[in-house]
């Protein structure tokens, strides 16, 4: 039968208290955090699609949200999280294939991930701004 009480509180060896935060460590948890953020952000995608399917009025409501400053901030964050998580996934894939474990390689990968995601997000939103002016 499954244990229904919480497990006994035993002392844990210190980890967060003693390890110096390295970029690779931070990016690992950020990969998980962006994943979780995208999980909830999928609601925005679902709203957009349902609004488009429902009709002009519903879509107008969504457009109102998407062009408001709250909406723009959320969508900007969502696109950054998406690109960052995607590049992080590619990083994991490189590791799965057995490459990129050396000390310089993993630092390079992590920086490429961060620089790439910020650059691509900015480029993407520049495209949105340009195409939005038609």
């Amino acid at each position, binding site marked *: 039968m499954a244990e229904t009480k919480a497990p006994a509180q035993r002392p844990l060896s210190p980890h967060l208290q003693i390890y110096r935060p390295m970029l690779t460590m931070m990016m690992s948890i950020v990969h998980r955090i962006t994943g979780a953020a995208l999980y909830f952000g999928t609601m925005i995608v*679902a709203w957009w699609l349902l609004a488009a399917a429902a009709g*002009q009025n519903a879509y107008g409501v969504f457009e109102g949200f998407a062009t408001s400053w709250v909406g723009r901030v959320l969508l900007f964050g969502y696109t950054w999280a998406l690109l960052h998580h995607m590049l992080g*996934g590619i990083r994991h894939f490189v590791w799965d294939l057995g490459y990129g474990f050396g000390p310089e390689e993993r630092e390079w990968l992590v920086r490429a991930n961060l620089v790439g995601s910020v650059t691509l997000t900015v480029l993407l939103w520049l495209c*949105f701004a340009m195409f939005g002016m038609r």
Partner: protein
Amino acid sequence: MTMRTPLARVRGFGSARSGTEHFWRQRLTAIANALLTLGGVILMISLTGRTYPGVRQILGSPLIAVLMLLFVLSITVHMKIGMQVIIEDYVHEEKQKLTLLVLNTFYAVAIGLACAYAILKLSFGV
């Protein structure tokens, strides 16, 4: 010889769920997601600045609809498995864990189905 209780094996939760099924499925959906996201970004750019009728027409076209259905399927599976791992990593109290795991599955299926419904409705033109 497995050392798990029968209940643990049936539930399939915990760090060693069932061989490499989750590992592989996460990688498979990740590859699909990466490719489809590329397409999705191009789609988003092409939709910018269009009015509602234009958006509706593009989203309803067969190729776009099929690609979007594939995208919804892939991200739904990927996010469900991913969140499952997060829950199992941090929640250890039995009742809380089971509740969250059930809610996770319900959320993923509901979001996926809602998106698929919208895409089909758009492409069938109803």
